[in-house]
Each structure stands twice: as structure tokens, then as C-alpha cells.
């Protein structure tokens, strides 16, 4: 499933870059992210708890931030698995300075398998968009308060 979109965040590009590379901010803003532990630079162990349609599940896995070109570009690679299947995803984030604010362009490809694919696939697009929306809304609030 491919998802893409743009959001504008109310902070200069350096601040945004710092925030999206801050494990604590990520943990706070990623819906359902229970744990995020850095086990080597830019690689995290993550525990994610999400419900898609009737399938609520906990997924353990890793999140890696690669291809970093500060302050404008990075790639996120996520994989997790749990009782209700597995999640694999890749996302690319590009930041563009626009004066005091920053334009975030994001694009990702998400794959799910097992029970969540069979039962939840119809809802996945909607759920994915909702979760990403929540993520940026939270970032927006954090940046709004911080600046």
C-alpha cells in the first residue's frame, strides 16, 4: 500500500529536523508506539500497539533511520511482527524550508501480512492515513509549543 502526502509544520527546518530525529518526540507522537529504544545509532527497537479493523495487535520490531542528509532528507525503515501478522514499511521524508515554517513531503510503502492483511486490508488505507495524520498533528503541537 502506497501512501504519500505533505504537511506544513510551524517551525524552521533545523528545528523540524531535530524533532523528527529525537526518539522522545517520535515516541510521544507516533500513535501506538509504546517503546522506542536506541540500540545503535539511528536504529531503534520498537513496540507498536495498533488496531486495524477488528484486529488489535502488538508488533515488536525495529525502526531504522537511514540515508540521512541533514537537515532535509531521511529514510525510515520499519519492520515489526506480532500475533496478528507482520508490518513492513519504508518511508522517505523530505523537508523544504519555507521561511518560518517547513514543508514536509512524505511518501511510504506499507506492507502487512497474516491476519491483519486478510481481515484488515480494506481498512488499512484509512487507518494508515489516520495514523499519519495524528503523527503530524502531534508534531505540529509540539513544535508550536516549543517555538
Amino acid at each position: 500500500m502506497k501512501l504519500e502526502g505533505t504537511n506544513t509544520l510551524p517551525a524552521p527546518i533545523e528545528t523540524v529536523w531535530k524533532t523528527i530525529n529525537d526518539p522522545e518526540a517520535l515516541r510521544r507522537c507516533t500513535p501506538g508506539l509504546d517503546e522506542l529504544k536506541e540500540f545503535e545509532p539511528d536504529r531503534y527497537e520498537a513496540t507498536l500497539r495498533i488496531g486495524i479493523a477488528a484486529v488489535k495487535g502488538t508488533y515488536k520490531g525495529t525502526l531504522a533511520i537511514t540515508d540521512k542528509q541533514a537537515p532535509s532528507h531521511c529514510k525510515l525503515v520499519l519492520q515489526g511482527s506480532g500475533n496478528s501478522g507482520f508490518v513492513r514499511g519504508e518511508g522517505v521524508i523530505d523537508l523544504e524550508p519555507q521561511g518560518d515554517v517547513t514543508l514536509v513531503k512524505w511518501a511510504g510503502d506499507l506492507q502487512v501480512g497474516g491476519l491483519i492483511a486478510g481481515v484488515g486490508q480494506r481498512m488499512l488505507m484509512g487507518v494508515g492515513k489516520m495514523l499519519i495524520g495524528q503523527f503530524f498533528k502531534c508534531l505540529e503541537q509540539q513544535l508550536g509549543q516549543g517555538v
Partner: protein
Amino acid sequence: MRHRNTYVPMSTRYFGARITRNEDPALLTGRGLFVDDVRLPAMAHAAVLRSPHAHARIRRIDARRAQAAPGVLAVFVHADLGPLGEPLPKLIPHPSLTYHKTQYALAPDKVRYVGEPVAFVVAESRYAAEDACDQVEVDYEPLPVAAMLEAAAAPGAPRVHDDMDSNVCAHYIQRVGNVEEAFARAPHRFRERFVIDRGASCPMETRGVVAAWDSRSRRLDVWDSTQAPIPIRNGLAEMFGLAEEDVRVIAPDVGGGFGPKVMMFYPEEVLVPLAAMRLGRPVKWIEDRREHLVATNQEREQIHDAEIAVDSDGRILGVRTVFLYDAGAYIPYGLIVPIVASTTLPGPYHIPNYHCEFRAVFTNKTMVSPYRGAGRPHGVFVMERLLDRVARELGLDRAEVRRRNFIQPDEFPYDVGLIYQDNAPLRYDSGNYPGCFDRALELIGYRDWPARQRAARDSGRWLGCGVACYVEGTGIGPYEGARVTVEPSGRVFVATGVGTQGQGHMTSFAQIAADALGVSPREVTVRTGDTGVFGWGTGTFASRAATVAGNAVALAAQAVADKSRTVAASLLEAPPDEIELAGGNAFVRGVPGRSMTLGALARTANPLRFTMPKEWEGPGLEAVRYFTPPQGTFSNGVHACVVEVDIETGQLTVERYAVVHDCGRVINPMILEGQIHGGVAQGLGGAFWEKLAYDDQAQPLSTTLMDYLLPTAAEMPPIEIEHMETPSPLNPLGVKGAGEAGVIPAAAVIAQAVDDALAPLGIQIAQTPLNPNLLWRLITEARRRS
């Protein structure tokens, strides 16, 4: 229904009578015995951990936490299987099947489809077993996936099996005549691509296995919702090193089979007995619906590139089809489905030159093996769609095109020139194809159709009419047998290896035996599907039970009748050919007073002391007989329908559905009609609603009945049925099979009716199943163009 259920007086034949079914009182009052009804003391329950990946290497499995979970008795992974860790048996080999891959009971190092068993957990309850499945840690390394049939067949596709150069495991060609020459000289040639997608059989009862091992008598009892208990028994005996006599497999009441339950061995059929033997406790596993939609074999996926050559009158000069067959991840059942597809395609038509060629292709999807129709719907879809194209291109009436090409009633036996699935020549034994066709046209009102359609169009309704023909290979060998016994009570006991999954064997076989012995079918008890009762046979598949087992019952019952006459003759002091059997008695013809009951004869024939006449050839009134047909027998039929398409929503309503069918002599018209009704429901489901969707990573997307749409009573049209009876010359009863008749042409007839309804928009259907979304898209695109 026109006919009422009537009891036929004792003196007439039961064969052909519309009598209610012997099995129904128990089934309708909840007293059936299905596998899940087997409840044994100290029974444990199993659950299967299945792969969530379509293709992945298993780096590591750790079952320690699962083993320690509450209520867990044992967890099996591949390493625990011992000698059972080899690939499961290859069922039906074929010289063209170069890579006969079968799956393992539990995947050793690689999984090849979503749903492939990885671990097997046995616990005190199903609840505990399912919870413990979640505790098994499996580290998968995802691999590139061969998801879509055509892409999987291409060079360079991700390979399902590492030791193969490609995913093509078989390449098979059959030819009749000189196709190249026929196409070269033909004035008209039309080429089409037809895509047939996946479906599931969805029996009401999913699969299930219960096994109990008695360590003192060293006997294994297995209850299995299978269509083939005897081959399962034989295979289990071999795998576990037991005598066949010490393994008993019972297929009790089975709530629908439809083909996938004739597959063997499913992993659970090995794992449940293994667990029962290791634990010394009975073990039960019942497949749930979500498992069923990934773990039970599926069918139908094929892509045909087909071409037809005709003369200017629409007479067929040649047909060619080159197709891909999606086998799924393994191919235990061999090439039956694509062989049946390519040999059903010629149907009731003269095709002097024919080339059929297929490649069987592995993909990372659930395995494929026969599902009701088993390739026949594909062949018919391709042939009927080609003829529709011919009619359209040449401006001929579609009925007339068919009429010009029919094999005529005086041409039987008719040799098509191919080898059929039973490895015998494809030779039609009998039939009346034009007669059947004319009856169907009359039933559906074909002559007045154009006027009716015009009137409907004038009022804004989009109606279409379809008519499609098929010839159905049925009643194939190798053999079936039956034992018929008259009990001292006078009741007749019939045992055969061919199990029933709802086809009415307890009644049809009873009717056959009743006629031979002069008793009522109510006095006949039929036992099937229990290797402890009858241990020779192959299974219920390919519409063969009535023909193969039915004739075995007839032969055995006839032998018992002869023996009864012999015994009665010595007691009643008359020659055997003067003895008549009727009303449960044996009596001297013309002297009804000189009679004995069959029960008394049976008791007399089994003396406790003294001597026995030599001509009795042994005790009791009992005989075992086998029937070994020389080849299959060929039923035929025509389906016709009227549909309405809502062009705003793409919804399809089947207004009328007519079936004219010839399966030789009919044993019980009511049972036959039930078979056709069920078949039409599955056929229409497969033509319009049911589609197993997979995403491009071969993740199944329709694993609930919310996503996999089965037709319900609300979608079903009334079905009008007429029987024609052209007896088969190949068996004593003159019968042919009927089990798949309702399904076979459904997709073809619906496609033609939709074409007809949407003709003003120029829409031609080349795929099946359809669905409202797809039709809506086709309609919308066509309207935009025009």
C-alpha cells in the same frame, strides 16, 4: 417443484422413484455425526500456527515459551516430526509433471504460502492451544514473492522452489488433426484471452480430524472430514508402520466436500494422529473458517490464450488454446485440473483440429486441486465464449452456430481424439446434444427473446439471455466395490467405500439394492466412508459414486438375490428360477403361499450345526462385488438464463435459470435436482460473487465470509430443471454422473447473458468471476466512449 414426494407401491421399481432421503431424519433433527461431534474421554485439542508470509526463509523457531504455556501438552515443529518430516505423498503422477512438489506436514526451513503450517500445538483446550500458538517465536526472512500467475510463469520471476530454473513444473500438449493447416486455410480466425480467477469451495463443514490411539491393542482410529477415507487409511498405515487392518478411518457425516476434501494428505491428517500416538490421548483439530480460506485447497485460476477458426457458415475448423494453470505452492494432486479443462473444452461440438497446451506454474499461494467442476467450467467458458465471438463476427444467431456444430445422436460412440483424466481415450458413450439444446431453448423462451428484450430496453431495463452447453466426463475408474448382506432381521445392509458428503448415497444405493432384493429402500441400511466396514475403494470425486459404486451395489445385490433364490429353492422345493423376491419375501412364482421372509432365509443360510448344501457356496445371504468401468461415461446438458443488469450500479440479478440435463438413467430425480440446485448456486457464486483476492505480495485479502461473498438464498433464482435420459451403454444400470452438472457452464452462460444485456454498449466479457464493481467499471468506460 411440480412433483410431490410419493412412495411407490411395493411391487414397482424404486430405481427412478422420487423418494425422500433415508439420511434426512437424522440430519434434519441435529442427530448427524460430523467430526466435531466426536467427543472422546481425555481428548486434547490442537491448533496450527500458520505462516503470515507468502514466501520466507525460517531462520529460527523457538517453541520453548509455547511449551511452557498453561494447558499445553506438546508443541510440534518440523524437527519433531522424525520420519514424518519428509514431503507428503505425491498423489497422481504424470509423465509431463517434471517437478511433483508436495508440502511438508510442517515447514522445515521455508514457507511458500500464507497459511502454510509451521507449528502444531496440542493443549487441554482449543483456547489454550491458540494462545500458545502466539508464544511460538518464528524468525522469518521475507523472500521475493511469485504472486500473480502470468508474472510467476515469466523467466526471472522469484522462484517458489529453489531447485527449479523457473516456476513451470509441467508442460503438456495434446493435439487432434492438423491445427496449423486448418487455421491457415480458414476464412475466419478469432483470438481471445480469457482470465479465470480463484475461488474456494466453502463447504458448510470445514475440515477436521480426530485421532485416538490405543497403545494396548495398537490400533489407530481416525475420524476425518475427507472424501477419501480408504486412501487416507492406507497412507497412514504406511507412514506410521502399522497394518492397514489396524488403522480405521471414518469419514462420518461430511458437510460438503466439493473436491478439496479428496486432497491428501493435508498436514493435519498426519499431525493429529501423530500427536495422538505421542501423547497417548485422543486429539481433535477442527479447521476454522479463516483457516479454511487459506489452508484448504482452492481452484479455478487459469489464463487462456485461445483461438478459433471457422468457415463462413460458422462451422468449426480448428480450436487452439494455450494456457497457464496456477498450481499454488505445491502440486500434490498433479495435473488433473488442467487436463480436465483442456479435455472438456471440445464439449458437444465437432472440432476436427484441436491443439491444447498448458503450463502448470507454482506461485506463492494456497495449493490448487479439483473443486466441483475441476477444470470443466474453464473449458466450457473458453469454448462457449469463442462460439459467441463467432456468432457476433459472422452475424449469425448464437443458437444456430451451436446447432451447426453439434455431434449428432447417431455418431456415438464419438472419439474426440484426446486422452482423458482417467488415462483412457476421451470417447463419448452416448447422448442427444441437439435434443437437449432444443429443450433448453424452449424452456427459456429463446424464440420470443428478441421481442422481450426490445420491450424491456424500451422501458429502460437491460435484460440479457444466455445459453451454454457442456459435456461432463463422469464415472471414471479405477473401481469401487460393495458388500450387500441380508441380516436375520430381514434388513439389508449395504457397505461401500465411497463416502457421502451430502449426495444421498444412503438413499440412492438403497433404491438400487431394494429393487434387486424386493424390499423397501427403508429396509436398506447403507454404510459408507468407514474403512472398518468396507476397506477397498478410492473415494468420492469426479461425479463417480452413482456410476461406479452404484453399479457395484447393483452387482452385489443381484448376487445376493441369486443366493436367496438358491437357498429358498431348496427350502421351498422349487427351482431357483421359479423363486420371486418381493415385499421382503421369497416365494414360488404363482404360489404366494409358499414363501419365507428374507430374514428367515438369512438365518437358515447360516446354520449352527450339521451340513450346508454345496451350491450355497458359503454362509449367509451376502456378496461382495466390484465394478471396474473401462472408461468414463459422459453426461451432457444445457443451461439457459435470463439476467438483468443495473447499469447504474453494476448489480446483476438472475431472473430465470433453466437446466436441461442428461445423465443417463436417473436413480432418484429429487436427489438429482438437489445436486443441480447446489451446483448452480456454486456456479453462480463463482460466476459473479466469489473471488479470492490476493495482493501483489500474495497476501490473501478475503479470509472471512465478509470479504468472500457466497451467494445466499436471496441471490438465487428459481431453477427450472428437465431431465433427459440417454442410458450409458458402459454400465449395467445405464447411469452417468451428475454431481458437477450444476456448476460447469454457469460462468459461460452468465457471461453470454451479460454480453447480451449490454450489447448496445459493446461490452464483451472475457473474465470470470464478475462482480458489481467490475461490471460498473466496464459499463462506465463503455458509456464514456460512446
